[in-house]
């Protein structure tokens, strides 16, 4: 298909924050994960660990513990508050001061009627879970002078108390973590690297596991001892196995039916399946690491050649460099000018940025937090200037997704209850609200939006897997794409045919004709033949779909480890075809090549991809964030074994 000029960008210093807490909801199979910056992410474990929702963080929020009660999510943290989250609008619903100092842990009883929290002052407080609220019920008094059996024996809930209320056994060691099990077994982990199992009735030591020579922080410890809990045989605790998936401290751990999920200072989520739960090697039995968010942090102005990077606290606007040289494949071209950081825009207020957008002409920039939306006018030609649009429609309070129309005359904001606000640019550079599309069905938040180049169509996808297509000329809902069982992870509308290409978390690929309101023939053919197993076995979702304006047959999409150009004019690969065939093609002669071509042209030259986009000048922008660079910026592990220490 030919040569491509690639802007290889590595100056997006994206830095995920450490994982602090996790809670798994076995009923809905959702994992809630809290990071150090106070953000909460929800992963759907039934849908290929797709990151369904992200609740943006806030400066003053610090989450130490998460807890599901039914479908409701609660958190507690060092600011001493318990918060419940509104999972439809992706914001805290309310928060409640517990008056016990920093809260280290929160947990519910199995009936889901009560919440117990463990506070810094040593008290355990119980809250009643009501329909719309929680209410303080009573205090469990702290046990003064009680030494070895750390938790309160009168408590009939299974309770996890961090930071050993009971204090430590010997002078030098610190008990980092204590677990109290329903059969009055107490498990403690301490800084000497031991996990000890105690009999809660008699206060005697049942068993000691020397887990590690390192300082056992909660993580390493917890990491080790959940494994034994799976194998509790009434008689004895057997240490089963040691996993070492993390380079840094593990701070949070969840045990699900078939796997151990862990996360920590090294910021990635690891799902380690317990192989004895699987009969055969399958897709689910592989180790899964989730490094990057399953959504876009990079906006690309295709006409202007600008990149917008979204950080929780700021936005960075860069102009790409350029080169007028030509070169052979594999060459690096001399730069005519270097990339330039045009702008660093810090957010206002405590709330972190949840989404941002850059218009394709590069003239408008917008971002949203849970409390406000801001739009800026940009001049990037000679004198860089930025002006905040002072008057915005009142309905525009916050958005889950923002997106500009391709002619920059409209902005779309995914608002509460799955509705879409259309904000139009009026003559005097001010924005006014033109229409709201209410959601016809689901109230789940919209996580993807895309518009057609001709300005006629808008597609919005929500976490209920629904995709709505709105007609922007008639200002009404056009159609609902047949709901597929897996959440769409990326979609795009073709610039000429107005076909909607959707990629789902389970790697399925569909093309839907908006005009005809049906799947296209190519899509049907693809579904009939089935996607190649190699494609289906990839473990990161496709996060971006773009098209080649010059060649209507080409669709560009990417995940973390590759980008792919799908040429719809070429035959689809069947299962016997070599899927990654670029190397083979390279070695073949010009004449032999056509017989080996297939539709999926995959390039793995670039790794750890955050964005791949095709500019209007046909050059490709690849934003890489090497994991090594992230790791190198992490703080050193709490304690490392060094020679002769």
């Amino acid at each position, binding site marked *: 298909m030919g*040569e*491509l*000029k690639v*802007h*290889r960008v590595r*100056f997006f210093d994206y830095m995920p924050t450490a994982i602090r807490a996790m809670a798994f909801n076995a009923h809905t199979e959702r994992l809630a994960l809290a990071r150090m910056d106070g953000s909460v992410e929800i992963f759907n474990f039934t849908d290929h660990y797709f990151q369904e929702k992200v609740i943006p963080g806030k400066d003053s929020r610090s989450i130490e513990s998460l807890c599901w009660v039914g479908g409701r999510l609660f958190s507690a943290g060092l600011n001493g508050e318990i918060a419940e989250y509104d999972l439809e609008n992706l914001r805290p619903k309310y928060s409640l001061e517990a008056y016990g100092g920093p809260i280290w842990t929160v947990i519910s009883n199995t009936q889901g009627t009560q919440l117990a929290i463990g506070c810094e002052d040593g008290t355990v407080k119980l809250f009643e879970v009501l329909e719309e609220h929680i209410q303080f019920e009573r205090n469990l008094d702290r046990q003064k002078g009680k030494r070895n059996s750390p938790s309160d024996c009168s408590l009939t809930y299974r309770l996890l108390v961090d930071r050993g209320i009971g204090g430590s056994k010997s002078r030098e060691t610190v008990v980092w973590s204590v677990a109290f099990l329903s059969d009055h077994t107490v498990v403690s982990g301490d800084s000497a690297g031991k996990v000890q199992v105690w009999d809660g009735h008699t206060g005697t030591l049942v068993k000691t596991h020397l887990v590690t020579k390192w300082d056992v922080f909660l993580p390493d410890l917890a990491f080790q001892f959940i494994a034994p809990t799976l194998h509790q045989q009434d008689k004895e605790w057997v240490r089963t196995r040691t996993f070492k998936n993390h380079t840094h401290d593990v701070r949070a751990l969840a045990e699900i039916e078939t796997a151990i999920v862990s996360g920590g200072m090294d910021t990635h989520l690891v799902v380690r399946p317990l192989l004895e739960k699987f009969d055969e090697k399958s897709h689910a039995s592989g180790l899964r690491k989730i490094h990057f968010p399953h959504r876009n942090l990079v906006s690309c102005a295709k006409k202007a050649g600008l990149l917008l990077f979204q950080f929780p606290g700021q936005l960075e606007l860069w102009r790409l460099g350029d080169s007028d040289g030509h070169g052979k494949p*594999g060459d690096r071209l001399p*730069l005519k000018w270097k990339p330039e950081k045009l702008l660093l825009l810090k957010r206002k207020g405590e709330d972190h940025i949840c989404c941002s957008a850059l218009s394709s002409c590069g003239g408008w920039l917008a971002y949203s937090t849970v409390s406000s939306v801001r739009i800026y006018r940009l001049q990037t030609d000679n004198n860089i200037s930025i002006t905040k649009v002072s008057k915005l429609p009142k309905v525009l309070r916050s958005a889950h997704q923002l997106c500009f129309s391709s002619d920059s005359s409209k902005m779309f904001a995914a608002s509460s209850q799955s509705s879409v606000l259309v904000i139009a640019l009026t003559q005097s550079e001010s924005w006014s609200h033109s229409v709201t599309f209410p959601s016809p069905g689901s109230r789940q938040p919209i996580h993807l939006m895309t518009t057609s180049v001709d300005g006629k169509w808008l597609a919005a996808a929500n976490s209920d897997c629904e995709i709505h297509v709105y007609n922007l000329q008639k200002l009404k809902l056009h159609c609902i794409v047949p709901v597929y069982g897996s959440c769409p992870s990326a979609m795009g509308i073709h610039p000429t045919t107005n076909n909607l290409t959707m990629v789902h978390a389970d790697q399925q690929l569909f093309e839907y004709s908006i005009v005809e309101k049906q799947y296209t023939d190519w899509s049907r053919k693809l579904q009939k033949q089935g996607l190649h197993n190699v494609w289906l076995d990839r473990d990161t979702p496709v996060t971006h779909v773009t098209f080649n304006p010059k060649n209507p047959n080409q669709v560009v999409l990417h995940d973390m480890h590759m980008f792919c150009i799908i040429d719809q004019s070429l035959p689809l690969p069947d299962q016997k075809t070599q899927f990654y065939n*670029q190397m083979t093609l390279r070695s073949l002669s010009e004449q032999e090549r056509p017989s080996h071509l297939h539709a999926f042209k995959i390039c793995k030259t670039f790794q750890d991809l955050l964005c791949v986009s095709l500019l209007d000048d046909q050059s490709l922008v690849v934003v890489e964030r090497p994991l090594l660079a992230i790791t190198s910026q992490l703080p050193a592990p709490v304690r490392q074994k060094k020679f002769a220490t």
Partner: protein
Amino acid sequence: MAALYEGFTLCGLVPTQNASDSPIQGIELDGDSDHAVVTDSTRSVTLYKVSDQKPLGSWTVKQGQLLTCPAVCNFQTKEYVVVSDNKVIRVWKDEDLNIDKAFKATVSADVWRVHSAPGGEPVVLFQRGAVRLLDSLLSAPQQPIEDVLSEEEVIRWSTNIVAEKQHFVLFTTEQKGEHFLYVQRLNPNTLQKYRLEREDSGAPPLSFSASLRDKHINLLYLYPNGCVYQSVVAVRGPVELEGVQTLPRSLRLRLPVGEGKLGAASAVALDEAHVAVVGMPHPSARTGKDFLCIWNTNFQTLQAGKEMVGRIHGPVWCYLGKLFVPHGKALSVIPYECQKSSLASALGKLRHAGIAVSKSSVAVPSWNSLLHGDQPQGPAKIVDTRKSKLSRKSQSATALNVDQVLELIKTGPVEEVQREVEALVSRGDAQDLQLSVGQLACHLVARSQAETAFYTPGALAQLVQTQCLCHSVCPDLLLLALEHKDYFLCQLCLQLFPDIPEVVTCACLKTFISVPDGDVEMVSLEPDSVSFMEGLVAAGDRGGQQNGFSPPLFEEDSCDAHHQPKPPQHQDKKNPTLQLEACPVGLHKAVLLNEVLQTAYSDNFLLPHLKDLNAQQVILFLQYLQFVYLKFSQDVYTQTPGLRSPTMTQIIDWLCLLLDAHFTVLVMAPDAKGLLSNLESFVKSQVKLFSELGKIEGSLQELHKMKLSKDISQYSIEVIELF
């Protein structure tokens, strides 16, 4: 490492009537770092510019008056303060010519010292232990001064230290043979009294030195038996401890004392690892005590030494990288330098890595923990030293035995000495031994040197095998072993001593080479090294060679040789492999030579000593090296891991060194011709190998380039091709 530089004389000294007294009372700093205020023992104070060695000013009190304390500089007012006749405080400025016309005040009690330090105002310490700030004292000179010390208690030494805006006066006292340390804090005033542990001999400490390090005051004191102890007092210590505490101490150094009592010796801490000692004998010089030495307390090694002309008068001062030593008829200033000492620099060139670790790991890393319990200095230190003191007390039973054995060594018969030493070594644990082994070895060696009939090879070998010994602890041991032809002991020393000087290495080499094979073959040597050598000799009866060396090269050479009418050489070359198979020296001799090859050395120091070898020895050694080199080059020979063996690099280094040292001799010597041309052919083969490598360099570089492209900067525009 530490070094003493060439010193210079600051001023001459007038000997005092009483020979034991120092002619100098004190040397203090001025505000200017290059100035020194020298107070002599009688009447005058002189200000010197040190770098110019010239006096800038001199002040003398009237005849009949006597200066009773060293003059100090008040750093805040730039005035000088001195005390005459115990009670009269005199304050004057630089520009005052006559001290008698300057300010003076008479106080109501006898003054011991006036102390001043940068950052604090001068304090006056009275003979009865009271402390006053100079200003407040001068504002009311006749104020009553209380007695702090009891009646028979007298101050022996004092100093002051300013730490973190906290001013301390430290002084030691003596009362009925007991010694005490007082720590007086100023503002708020608190006084803490410590009892110094009695040294076994009951002798009083000879000198004290206090320094501030890591928020702790380190007190270093020297006893006449050569022990240097260190005690640590926390600056922010427990505020009020009731009563008299015993000051925990730790032994930093045990210096060799030699015969006779130490009269005026003194030790001063230079930094945390180095101590300067004067008035002590140099361990390798037999006689005299008039040395200035710098010891490393971490490794207990002598770092630098200098003989001072004339008797050393005792105290030594250390300011800003210079040592002030009064000796004979002069006050010398000797600049020094202490670098952070690392084990590697202390041991010299790194040895064969694998072996070095396995052999020396026991002895070396434990030095710190062993001697000082090596915690980072902190409050816990005091507790720790107390602990270690307790443990030391429990060890004293064995220590006594060490003394007994030492006595026995002086007079006892060979067998008994041998038995006792072996018993002692096998009984004691490593920690006890560390200190006593050196003494035992030194005594044994000294006796052996005195009486030729006395020699205890077994005991010495056992001492060496404890790995607590090194060459600098007992410098004569290895030479003694050579003298007595105790090759086993020589081998042990070469293996286990990390610090053998090049001259001794060469002496060993010379002896080993020239010893007749028959003499050595009977000696039992360390079995591992022997089995290595047996393997080496046996290996490779046939088979190719690596490193580009191959027999065909000889044929090429012999083609060249046709032009030279040298039949004997030619005969050699017809049969090169046969010549190579035979080891030019006996098996045990080879084992010993291997040990020499593996010792650590520096080329510069080794080279001059190598010249001492005569031509025959050189040729033989070269032949041996060539033999080992060829063996190593053979594919067939594979080194047994774990066996101590010279490396290829060591062999080549020695070859080069030998050729360097004796090149002219070898060129002239007719019997070296064959050898040299063989060596030349090695070089040729190596050169050929490298030229071959050079030919494929281009291809290799391409590989390199491919690697390079992986290195990606922040931004690049690349061209890729998709098919």
